[in-house]
């Protein structure tokens, strides 16, 4: 039992990294634009399908393929922001964004169903079924690679936000859009690029997800509620929060699944979420000052 629980913790930490990657984009978009992007789930699947296609049709390794899929999703993100999100009025942006992104996601779902059929697929590579033996535990390569990549990308995102001029504008917009505009920041441009980046990083998360799960377009529905839960638990706009919340969630779920019962694992996670948010409404790492309604 003891070693099973350790194994569950290892699993939780490794898969948590992948979820953090999918959630990082969501929290960025959330924070900068006050947008609840429910299309994030389908963007993950879109990223997975792109990696799958490159690997099957062009023989490109999924990790190498990210050099293509990340920019591709960046363009998709920019397109969606430019086409729809920026047309939302300031005041009711949050509520309307749920509707618009939902509509976007069902359009994409329809397109994916037509292009790829509804049969489940999975991304294959030599490392997908292999693992490295370490201290008596098997660590699957795909998760290890995925975790390392997640860490690299999250650090890169962090550097972008805290070490660059662009990052400074993003953070200013995160705190107060109006004030940012007053000091001469092009908030619209910042929003568009942030949305693009937020969608682009899901390409990486989607690739690892697609290599560890068989998927079709409907799989996105299972993802979005988890991703939302993670970013709220972590605190809106907080990258570190997303990482901690993702790892916390997956470890908790995995340990409950092993030590008690899988059917209660998800319920325990959501219950923990409710408890944490009742005590800290802004999440683990969110700024506790409630923004004006």
């Amino acid at each position, binding site marked *: 039992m003891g070693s099973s629980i350790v*194994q569950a913790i290892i699993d939780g930490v490794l898969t948590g990294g992948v979820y953090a990657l999918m959630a990082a984009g969501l929290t960025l978009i959330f924070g900068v634009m006050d947008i609840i992007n429910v299309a994030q789930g389908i963007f993950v699947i879109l990223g997975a399908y792109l990696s799958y296609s490159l690997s099957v049709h062009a023989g490109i390794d999924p990790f190498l393929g990210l050099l293509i899929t990340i920019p591709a999703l960046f363009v998709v993100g920019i397109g969606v922001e430019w086409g729809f999100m920026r047309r939302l009025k300031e005041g009711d942006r949050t509520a309307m964004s749920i509707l618009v992104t939902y509509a976007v996601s069902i359009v994409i779902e329809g397109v994916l169903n037509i292009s790829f059929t509804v049969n489940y697929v999975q991304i294959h590579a030599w490392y997908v*079924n292999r693992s490295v033996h370490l201290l008596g535990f098997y660590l699957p390569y795909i998760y290890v690679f995925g975790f390392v990549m997640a860490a690299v990308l999250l650090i890169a995102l962090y550097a972008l936000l805290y070490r660059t001029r662009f990052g400074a504008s993003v953070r200013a917009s995160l705190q107060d859009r109006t004030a940012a505009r007053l000091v001469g920041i092009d908030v619209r441009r910042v929003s568009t690029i942030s949305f693009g980046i937020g969608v682009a990083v899901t390409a990486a998360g989607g690739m690892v997800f697609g290599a560890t799960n068989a998927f079709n377009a409907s799989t996105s529905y299972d993802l979005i509620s988890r991703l939302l839960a993670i970013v709220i638990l972590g605190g809106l706009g907080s990258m570190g929060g997303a990482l901690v919340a993702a790892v916390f969630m997956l470890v908790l779920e995995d340990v409950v699944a092993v030590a008690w019962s899988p059917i209660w694992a998800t319920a325990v996670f959501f219950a923990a979420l409710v408890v944490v948010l009742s005590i800290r409404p802004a999440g683990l790492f969110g700024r506790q000052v409630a923004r004006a309604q």
Partner: protein
Amino acid sequence: MHGGISRRKLTAAGLGSLITAGALAGGLVASSAGAADHAVPKAASPITIGVSLSLSGDFSADGQAFQRGYQLWAKDVNRAGGLLGRPVKLDIVSDASSPTQVVTNYQKLISVNHVNLLFGPFSTLLTVPASKIAYRFGYALVEGAGGAPAVFANGLHNVFDVSLPVVDNLVQFAKWIASMPASQRPKTAAYPTSNDPFTEPQIAPAERILQNAGVKTVYSKVFPAEVTDYTPIADAVAASHAQVVVLGSVDVPTVSSFIQAFAQQHFNPKAFIATGGPDQGAAFVKAVGASNTNGVMVPNGWYPGYANASSRKMVSEYVKQYGGTASGINSDVAEAYSVGQVVAQAVTATKSLDNAKLIAYMHGNHTFSSVQGPVKFDKLGENGAAAAFAFQWQNGKFVQVLPAQDSNSVKIQYPKANWGS
């Protein structure tokens, strides 16, 4: 006070939209009025058969396989001169895997499209509402994928399942394990099961048989149907070192996640059987990877190599029409095809499209033949004659292995080859 006026106008607009909705509904009726013409059957007017299938949503993979099965059957029947000298025409609509839409769809098929006969949708959860509507309108609902006890709990006499009853699914496999000489018989078994009306009822009888044969249960837990991360569950099964794994799965993603985690953990059980997923042909192989399929078993009532003349014919036609190999055919196709065959035989025998007569006939202890073997309905509408088999992937081929004494069974691969070989 502009509000007052606009409010009135808007209420009027609401009224207008009600009328629009009515017109839309009316249009629905009118657009299919053509189908209603054959209330007076002409000699060559087609026999219409209504089906609602999940062409999108959760059950879409199975729904689309079912569609192929139905269409293949219709093509075959028409090539052979149709039914009662009339061609058959399928009227397939989609329910997007939603019971709400199923309710609307079957009413539309019956009361707007005036179909002559009905075929069932995919899976138990949608078959239940469909069967109630069919019952209300006096139609027989013959189906191939609603075999769970819930379907037969309503006491309706109009629903007929041509496939193997779900509860019997794993019995063949369990008996085989139990019959092994004690020295070879595995000592331990794990039963991870998805929370689903298709899987849960079949695991319990299998576990009982194995326990009576002295196979100790080392893992038996139910997991949620919509879990997205199976790794910890699979790892816990691996940690139990069970020699037999009976996985209660409904779809490919579940099986593929377990296999992946087992491979990563270097956990190679002597026997691995999954209740759903490995029977999905090419879709299964694509997801888990060809090298991981070796030795994987699945219980079912049919497989593409089934030694039955009509099955062979169907398989070759399927390959001709859709490409691929025989092993790539989803067993859903056969379940759908069997529905058509049973209905056709009932119609031919009664020389009638009268659903009351068809229902009476199908309850009349007659044996039908289908690509899945003999079909004979008990008083609940379950197929009492269905044969239970177990199949196995062996070096890229999907073969029948149980019952062992059946002349068409090949030697079972036991213990199962390691993952990736």
